[in-house]
């Protein structure tokens, strides 16, 4: 597997904090969970009413979604399986090359 399957089951989630309290909760959450911020690219840049796209490992997805749901913070999944998306990005290419 590409990248040794390291992204299998990982997801990219879009979180939209609406209040300063939401922002505080999200920052605290991301400090505790090992997340890869896609946008913005730093915790200090998270602000109310702007989307936060975060790559989260498959082992932390349940906790992240549970915490966000508990805090009533809006979130949705952008990429449901990162490994598949990555392999799709290059797999098509190799078949084309073969052709």
């Amino acid at each position, binding site marked *: 597997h590409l990248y040794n399957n390291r992204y299998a089951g990982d997801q990219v989630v879009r979180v939209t904090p609406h209040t300063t309290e939401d922002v505080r909760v999200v920052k605290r959450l991301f400090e505790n969970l090992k997340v890869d911020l896609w946008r*913005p690219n730093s915790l200090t840049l998270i602000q109310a009413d702007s989307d936060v796209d975060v*790559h989260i490992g498959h082992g932390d997805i349940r906790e992240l979604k549970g915490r966000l749901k508990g805090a009533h913070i809006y979130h949705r999944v952008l990429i449901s399986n990162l490994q598949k998306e990555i392999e799709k990005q290059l797999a098509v290419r190799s078949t084309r090359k073969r052709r």
Partner: protein
Amino acid sequence: SDFQYDYEVYHSLDEIKSWMFEMNRTHPHVVDMFSIGRSYEGRPLYILQLGKRTHPYKKAVWMDCGVHAREWIGPAFCQWFVKEALNSYRTDPVMRRLMNHLNFYIMPVFNVDGYHYSWTTDRLWRKTRSRIARYQCRGVDANRNWKVKWCDEGASSHPCDETYCGPYPESEPEVKAVARFLRKQRKRVKAYISIHAYAQMLLYPYSYKYATIPNFTCVESVAHNAVNALYSAYGVRYRYGPASTTLYVSSGSSIDWAYKNGIPYTFAFELRDTGHYGFLLPESLINPTCTETTRAVKTIASGLLKKC
């Protein structure tokens, strides 16, 4: 020639390097290839100079792609632009005029070590690959390492952070090499363009403060025309404006450094998309993304030939 190159797929660093040599070999009258230094891991930092050799003191546009390793659509665009410039020189009067009156310095992959690493080990790597003393984490954010309000708001002084500014300004050999080249060419380079992803934005200074640049009217007008040109291709709307207010505050960025060093028009593109695929923009979207962005870059370059 039997050199077939597919511009609608992502290419590895080796393939991009071979492609650069081929462009240099097959277009000797309008292409020059040279290196401006070496990366942290010792890879050459190759530049393609495009332009008719009309006279030695032509104005120039600098464009770099791939500052952040995982933003693969950047290098794809740089290659696409070179292909368009060379293929349309005879048929497109606008491109012919640009190539006759300007030189384009194109750096398809700025962060060569990071890009190679994103192909072989970690697809979502962002930073360079330098080692930091006393820390296991590697890499500096090359767009927080420029000597302008270095390591201030919007950058991090912690080596394990994605926006790590580095141990000192221009600590990254890649940043140092480009800064040195642009300092040397200062009198001729009139526009600096850096290609990033994703958010669909066109940004200009300042990034590190909420203030208006002295030549705001001219820069705003060029940006407005550029996003209109981009929109004309497929109807994709880009936001544009000062980076600090349009995106967020960040210090040590290349567009602020270039502007502060006398380049009157400096822009950063954030290409497609707005998050559906993010850094994993499918190859099927390379063509439309690059087609629309080429229109925007041509509009910016054309702006240099007008008086403002």
